[in-house]
């Protein structure tokens, strides 16, 4: 018995930890069916579980506006951060130039800086400098901030992919009559693409889920996490649970689908 436990110790702990990770998600799911009266904090034992929040996910005031804002910012920030970060990664891995070490530090330090410091510092320039040029706190200041903190993560991800690339593969392309442009677009880029896609997904999830920095630079604009945080005191509407859980399901489906396609490709003859 003891040996059996010893052998499976890691697996048992792993399963328990995974359950722990999923507990709040399950809670969110269950409470999306709560037929509550005033606030969705305790389960209403009188009301039977209801589908009404799922049938009307925008039923709570502001929740869908916040979601749309988050999605818009997420997409814009992802696209720009991915482009900027990928370019940086190529420069840092593929070229030797003056100031490379400094650039590496410049990319690393934002990741090592607490979000609250990033938020606070951005707030000081947005308040003191940018309002003068007509850029008040809101949608665009949030987007700017998100791009800033996503860039570093994109760089790290793409860099790792680039570094694991065998330089001989590109040499082989050159050897087979591909010029610099052809080598890049037909060989280098397709091989780095999975890294870039991974970086983009990472950037989107970081942006979509960010609260601390957003809260500093958002002014009156409300993103989805901010909506949840602000409405917490009054009780979070079950529609937020519906949306939160739906995002979870959508993202999970996409990831699993991607996995399956990848597996199918690998095993196809």
């Amino acid at each position, binding site marked *: 018995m003891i040996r059996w436990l010893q052998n499976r110790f890691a697996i048992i702990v792993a399963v328990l930890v995974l359950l722990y990770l999923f507990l709040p998600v399950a809670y969110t799911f269950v409470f999306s069916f709560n037929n509550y009266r005033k606030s969705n904090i305790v389960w209403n034992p009188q009301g039977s579980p209801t589908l009404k929040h799922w049938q009307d996910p925008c039923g709570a005031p502001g929740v869908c506006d916040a979601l749309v804002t988050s999605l818009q910012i997420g997409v814009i920030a992802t696209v720009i951060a991915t482009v900027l970060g990928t370019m940086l990664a190529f420069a840092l891995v593929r070229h030797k130039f003056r100031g490379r070490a400094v650039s590496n530090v410049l990319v690393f330090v934002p990741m090592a800086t607490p979000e609250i410091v990033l938020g606070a510092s951005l707030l000081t320039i947005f308040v003191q400098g940018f309002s003068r040029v007509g850029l008040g706190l809101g949608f665009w200041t949030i987007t700017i901030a998100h791009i800033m903190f996503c860039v570093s993560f994109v760089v790290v991800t793409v860099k790792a992919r680039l570094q694991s690339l*065998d330089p*001989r*593969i590109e*040499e*082989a*392309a*050159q*050897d*087979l*009559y*591909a*010029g*610099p*442009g*052809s080598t890049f677009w*037909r*060989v280098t880029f*397709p*091989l780095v693409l999975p890294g870039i896609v991974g970086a983009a997904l990472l950037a989107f999830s970081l942006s979509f889920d960010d609260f601390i920095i957003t809260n500093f630079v958002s002014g009156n604009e409300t993103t989805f996490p901010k909506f949840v945080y602000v409405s917490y005191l009054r009780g979070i509407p079950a529609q937020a649970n519906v949306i939160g859980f739906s995002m979870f399901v959508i993202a999970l489906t996409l990831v699993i689908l991607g996995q399956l396609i990848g597996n199918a490709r*690998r095993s196809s*003859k």
Partner: protein
Amino acid sequence: MATNSGFREATGDLRLESVTKAFGDFRAVDDLDLVVPRGSFFALLGPSGCGKTTTLRMVAGLEQPTSGRILIGDTDLTGSRPYERPVNTVFQSYALFPHLTIRDNVAFGPKRRGQKDAMERAEETLRLVEVDHLAARKPAQLSGGQQQRVALARALVNRPEVLLLDEPLGALDLKLRRQLQVELKRIQTEVGLTFIHVTHDQEEAMTMADTVAVMNHGRIEQMGAPADLYDLPRTTFVANFVGRSNLGTGRVVDRDGDHLVAEIQGTKVKVPLARAGVTDGEVTFGVRPEKVRVLRQPPETGGDDVKGIVLDVSFTGVATEYLVRLPSGAVWSCYEQNLDVDPIDLHRGDDVWISWNPAHAFTVPVDEAAAKAAAEATA
């Protein structure tokens, strides 16, 4: 995408004219002159770091020489880009494009050159190397040997003027290596292209190549047909790197007709003048181990001989190797074929005579460092 606008047609022998490649203070290739005749199978043999791969990369255009010229026929290729040269490479570890199918890998070169029948050419070449049934797969789904064939096909399909092979068999196991050696040779004969094969495996170089150039410290030590290199090494390094040699250092003391007489650690030995790389002063004298016979009694007829003590006997099937300590302290290695007559029953500690025909002996310049380096590289 016509990116091969700068492509240079060239045909003829490959010539390297005093080519030097320096990385900082280090001269990877040092003032190299070399002519590889068109259509030959040429091997560059040497230990790692000897400059053979750098030489290959300069021919491919992946490195530019610090000085000197690289030509095919009369066309100077120095300074041109890899994609402008009629030269293709089979890379060490193959460097297949992991995201493309085997067919697309092979068709890559012809497509870049805008050849309409790229796909047919690819199929045809895949048939030549006998992996056409794998055309639709990705490289990751192939075994090492199959990837090697694809890498070869990907270079061959372009019918380059010169085909470069960078340790192409290094990652394969011994049996597969032997098999592919034979096949590479067959393919080379069939297509008639110039092959330049870089390897550190002397056996591989000798079985495949028409001409072998032995490189060390960025220079060519000796070049010639495999049998000639083996029979008459011209430097200590070659004597030890291409096969093994029993070497001893001493002085030339006399002439005896068309033979040179040298005293090597107390023993007088003879070397035909035609085989003497050095005829004066300090020399290193050598004999190949299989040319030395081990005897229980002193030999009756001519030849040179020395008395010694058996240090070790190792039976290898076809032959037996004896290590014999000579009075000077030197240890010689002797291979005796295990023929059906008189197996000599020798043991550690037995007194023996070793003897050889002076016609097989040679002298080379004294070079302790090279002797040591070569012995380590082949160990």
